[in-house]
């Protein structure tokens, strides 16, 4: 009975463990080259960024362009904790997420009264302010950046961070809080009339999204060991936005797939960096024209989906045998 009740969770855990082990063996066995290991880690970081931006832009419907800013806050706070203060990595994660969350509250409270374009401009401005301010603080290395951050990020760290982030977002979305956010997105006046405190939920989604962007920043800093403010420009936010749009605003599965696909695409385009942003723009236009809702729209791929597919396939096989 107990087995049956938890069968879905067990299946998912087993699948995740299997995936983790295969990749781990691939890395330690040298089957995955150093270049692709880097991209694999980037993929993980991008998944966290895309999923957290989707929570704000897709599920709550607030168009934020401040993700690079939150990531920078997390990256530099985490870097200070380990490189400058010499404290352990888990503390850097906690501090980076907390700092980004606080930045989220500070930016969110005044700007979430704004709608649509205005919010986008305000958050975009926030990201630029963070970048310029960091460039002018000597304590974090100024424009040349923060150096000597310990390289502690490995496959297990990335894997666990991605799984926990996705779990957090999924549980949030599936709870009554998530419903409240959806209602705010659909119609904020009606949501208010149903008893949803719209300011609270807008800020809450914004803060969770910011904290996870901060986590992505900490991971990024502790993989590359050197971080420069100029890396966290609007282009980074744009990258993440493309992942979310291509995957589908309002689909967590879409964000994961979007992040994976675009990280791979960008890895192949490394040889021609000038064209990378051009191709990104073309991709965004193509997505908007041919599939405006993104690859997944608002749909999620769950275990049930696979079971349904399994049913269809075995059904087809059954027919063939009957013939």
């Amino acid at each position, binding site marked *: 009975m107990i087995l049956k009740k938890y069968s879905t969770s067990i299946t998912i855990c087993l699948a995740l463990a299997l995936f983790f082990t295969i990749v781990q063996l691939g890395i330690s066995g040298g089957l995955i080259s150093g270049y692709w290991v880097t991209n694999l880690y980037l993929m993980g970081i991008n998944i966290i960024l895309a999923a957290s931006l989707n929570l704000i832009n897709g599920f709550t419907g607030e168009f934020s362009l401040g993700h690079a800013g939150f990531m920078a806050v997390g990256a530099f706070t985490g870097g200070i904790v380990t490189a400058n203060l010499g404290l352990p990595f888990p503390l850097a994660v906690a501090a980076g997420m907390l700092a980004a969350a606080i930045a989220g509250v500070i930016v969110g409270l005044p700007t979430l009264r704004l709608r649509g374009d205005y919010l986008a401009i305000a958050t975009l401005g926030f990201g630029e302010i963070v970048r310029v301010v960091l460039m002018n603080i000597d304590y974090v290395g100024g424009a040349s950046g923060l150096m000597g951050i310990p390289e502690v990020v490995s496959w297990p760290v990335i894997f666990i961070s991605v799984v926990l982030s996705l779990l957090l977002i999924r549980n949030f979305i599936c709870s*009554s809080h998530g*419903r*409240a956010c*959806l*209602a705010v997105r*659909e*119609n904020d*006046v*009606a*949501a*208010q*009339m*149903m*008893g*949803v*405190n*719209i300011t609270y939920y807008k800020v809450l989604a914004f803060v969770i999204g910011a904290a996870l962007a901060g986590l992505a920043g900490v991971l990024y800093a502790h993989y590359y060991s050197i971080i420069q403010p100029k890396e966290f420009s609007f282009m980074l936010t744009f990258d993440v936005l493309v992942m979310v749009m291509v995957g589908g605003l309002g689909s967590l599965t879409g964000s994961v797939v979007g992040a994976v696909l675009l990280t791979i695409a960008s890895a192949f385009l490394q040889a021609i960096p000038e064209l990378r942003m051009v191709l990104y723009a073309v991709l965004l236009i193509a997505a908007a024209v041919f599939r405006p809702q993104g690859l997944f729209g*608002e749909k999620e791929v769950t275990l049930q989906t696979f079971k349904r597919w399994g049913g269809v396939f075995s059904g087809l096989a059954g027919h063939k045998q009957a013939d």
Partner: protein
Amino acid sequence: MGGVAPLLQLDDLHVHYGAIWALKGINLTVGEGEIVSLIGANGAGKSTTLRAISGVVTASSGRICFHEEDITKVPAHDIVKKGIAQVPEGRRVFANLSVLENLEMGAYIRRDTKGIKQDLEDVLDRFPRLRERIGQVAGTLSGGEQQMLAIGRALMTRPKLMLLDEPSMGLAPLLVKEIFSIIEEINREGTTILLVEQNARMALQIADRAYVLETGRIVLDGPAKELARQEEVKKAYLGG
């Protein structure tokens, strides 16, 4: 209502939208179990009155009392907890959520799982068409069905007072009749109704009492049947 305090009472309510003075001192009462209609032309302030009650706009002066409690300054998301539900103008259903999810959103403030289930069944019995379309995305419903959904969603809050803003808007005459008979039915089952309508004929037919608004002021009030007979009302709102 001799002696008994009214369920809802507005005292000298003023509302401004920036420089625009939308309500210029509204006095109005709604007794428990009544259907009260607000009629008047476009821009008279009918919807603003409802929005002020539900807290979506704030009153610049005056008082709103519900159950003898001052709710003038209560924010919109707490008004529904007091037992006031609004069916907003233009329905405002959650277009990308399913019919079921819309109705569940109505029960957002409630935690009594059993009661919610029972009320959901009641709403679906009342609106069989919503049951047929339970999994359908609300944006794909027809205007009449969306109106039913908006009413159903408001019922899910289990309100003592239901505010309805132009429920007949954009509906075919036959559907208007249906919606109004549903409103009467809801009232018979114990929910007090405050109704805002352009369709004065229908509104006066089902109401116990009515108020006529003109440019932010109440110019006439009384039992609905009497108002319907008055020459000035006939001329201005009932087409001669």
